[in-house]
């Protein structure tokens, strides 16, 4: 399919939604659902089309960036449709604009246009997270992460005199890129972009995670075993924190898949696609959580715990193979042995977290669109987990002899489906749960609502944004002075 259509369909849908705000209220919900369905299909189509390396202008529809960015956009539209109402067409419209920006920026080949479009998409995201009320934490997270990203790319470009989007970073640019990913993606629990949770800005969450993962995943992947160890330890800490409290805090639980994915990606670059997709699906499931009314709990648990047979499990297996191979006698085995030791703990923490999530209390058992959306995410995760590993960038025999593995997985899924159907027919009375159910709350630390403080922090954000724009402008002029074409780019 022509990439122009795949990029621009989201902007067209944004225009339709913006016009739709003028439609009679009884039509608006249908317009939103239709646009969300089309946007979701558009994102998935782009993910499936990537790998052809189709070039359009300064963009290339390549793996793994296309798959990650396309999936992030599809998840965002799914959330917009499932969480939306006849009053959220405006926010969905902004999300569509941001989606096109994210796609063009992450698939861009050249630093300056990619950064300029990235900042433009950030403007749409800022408008989205500011709808209804000014969410200062989210604003600052976007601003600071953009500044760090621009700094990372600018330092790399000026040092190396290379103007293409980097596939590898080192030193300070690597640290800045990592900081940008951490601040923007929801890795920081309870603060920053988590202010958007349980609001009409929630569909922005997959874009805020998927954008940096698509753009920075490649340079950050393989950043080293010690980075991986640090990320896995933080993930375990967050998992422990989620298990420790009597209530579940969604903004803490939601940080777990982000850190876990970063840890896996840093250790094994080959797991970038399954780890990133698993994080996106898990984060989207968390964003849907408040609207599911306690339904689709086991599905959400399996996605969040990175359990078999989901995409997250494939990422864990892929990382374990690398860690155990390199942990054997040879160069620098200590770090790899530590990763090999942390992975069983991670699996166990995932199981405990998934079980705790699955026992969340159900105040209302009426079906909602959000519950079906959560189930759709689970089905997507399982489908990814049942794919041939080579389709996700891993070695074909990662899970063993492929034909036998597919047969075994098919039997396992079939029997699990039968068992699930029997349990469903028995109903809630058949499940002899023990102990208290688990309550869940957003648990976000909201910035002071004092208007004076808010004004000051918005001013700080504006200064940061101006700084980012100035850096990109400087980079453009510096590139122009070199003609953007040093020998290394030819």
């Amino acid at each position: 399919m022509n990439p122009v259509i795949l990029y621009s369909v989201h902007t067209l849908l944004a225009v339709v939604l913006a016009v739709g705000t003028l439609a009679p209220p009884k039509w608006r919900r249908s317009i939103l659902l239709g646009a969300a369905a089309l946007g979701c299909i558009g994102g998935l189509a782009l993910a499936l089309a990537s790998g052809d390396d189709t070039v359009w202008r300064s963009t290339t529809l390549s793996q793994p960036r296309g798959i990650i960015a396309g999936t992030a956009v599809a998840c965002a539209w799914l959330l917009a449709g499932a969480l939306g109402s006849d009053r959220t067409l405006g926010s969905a419209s902004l999300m569509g604009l941001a989606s096109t920006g994210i796609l063009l920026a992450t698939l861009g080949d050249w630093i300056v246009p990619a950064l300029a479009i990235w900042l433009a998409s950030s403007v749409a995201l800022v408008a989205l997270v500011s709808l209804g009320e000014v969410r200062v934490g989210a604003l600052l997270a976007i601003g600071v992460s953009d500044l760090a990203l621009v700094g990372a790319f600018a330092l790399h470009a000026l040092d190396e005199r290379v103007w293409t989007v980097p596939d590898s970073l080192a030193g300070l640019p690597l640290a800045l890129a990592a900081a940008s990913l951490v601040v923007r993606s929801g890795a920081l629990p309870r603060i920053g972009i988590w202010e958007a949770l349980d609001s009409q800005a929630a569909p922005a969450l997959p874009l805020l995670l998927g954008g940096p993962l698509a753009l920075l995943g490649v340079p950050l992947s393989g950043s080293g075993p010690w980075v991986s160890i640090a990320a896995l330890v933080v993930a375990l800490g967050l998992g422990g924190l989620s298990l420790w409290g009597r209530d579940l805090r969604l903004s803490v639980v939601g940080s777990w898949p982000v850190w876990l994915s970063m840890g896996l990606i840093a250790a094994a670059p080959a797991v970038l696609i399954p780890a990133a997709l698993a994080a996106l699906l898990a984060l989207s499931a968390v964003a849907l959580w408040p609207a599911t009314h306690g339904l689709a709990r086991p599905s959400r648990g399996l996605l969040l715990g990175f359990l078999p047979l989901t995409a997250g499990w494939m990422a864990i297996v892929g990382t374990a193979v690398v860690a155990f191979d390199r942990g054997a006698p040879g160069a620098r085995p200590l770090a790899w042995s530590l990763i090999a030791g942390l992975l069983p703990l991670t699996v166990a923490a995932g199981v405990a977290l998934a079980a705790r999530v699955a026992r969340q209390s159900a105040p209302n058992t009426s079906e909602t669109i959000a519950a079906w959306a959560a189930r759709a995410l689970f089905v997507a995760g399982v489908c990814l987990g049942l794919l041939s590993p080579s389709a996700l960038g891993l070695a074909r025999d990662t899970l063993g002899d492929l034909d036998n593995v597919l047969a075994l997985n098919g039997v396992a899924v079939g029997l699990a489906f039968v068992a699930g159907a029997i349990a469903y027919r028995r109903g809630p009375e058949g499940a002899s749960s023990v102990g208290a159910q688990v309550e869940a709350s957003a648990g976000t630390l909201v910035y002071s609502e004092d208007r004076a403080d808010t004004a000051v922090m918005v001013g700080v954000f504006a200064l940061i944004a101006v700084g980012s724009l100035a850096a990109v402008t400087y980079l453009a002029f510096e590139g122009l002075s070199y003609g953007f074409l040093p020998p290394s780019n030819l």
Partner: protein
Amino acid sequence: MGGLVLALGYLTGLVSGPLVAAVGGLALNTFGRSLRMDRRGQVLAAAGLAVIAGALGIAALRWGTLELSELRSVQAVLGPTVLVGPEPAATAAIIATVAASVALALWVAALPVRGFVGWAWTGLETVSVALALVTAFWGPKILLVPDVPSSEVVSSFGVWAIAAAVVTIAGVGGGLLARMLSPSVRSGLMIASLVAISVAAGFIGSTL
């Protein structure tokens, strides 16, 4: 159900693949059971899974491979993991085996089991864990190739089955005994198992 199929598929040799894939089956079993546990039970079951997976990881690090077929082959030639030197490696394997057995008993004790069907299912799940431990630490190769005499097939299969049965009985029996202990004692034993696995990891690390 799905977890049991996955674990047994890999551990019986029907599907060749990495040990960690079999651990995935055990993880799914634990998840399914945890849905009916209280918070303490969930943590104990997950900790048991961590100790068992860690012990399996120590065997994998000992031989430098995650592949189940390679783990079976190397032990068929050199002997069971717990008996083959160097001394620190064998010590690590023994500590890991003991810790994993204790963890298995506590894992069984944490499962909510009622009635004959419940115990039969628990027995199957315990068999899957026992097969994993036997394959990693006492894993004579299962000879199912055409050129091997049938007597050798029977003997190799027999040793493997007896070892798995012993660990299963120890797990279920230990689980029944552990149910008589107070929750705090069970937690203490699990912590001791986790510490033992860490010590074993230190031993195996010294040999790398």
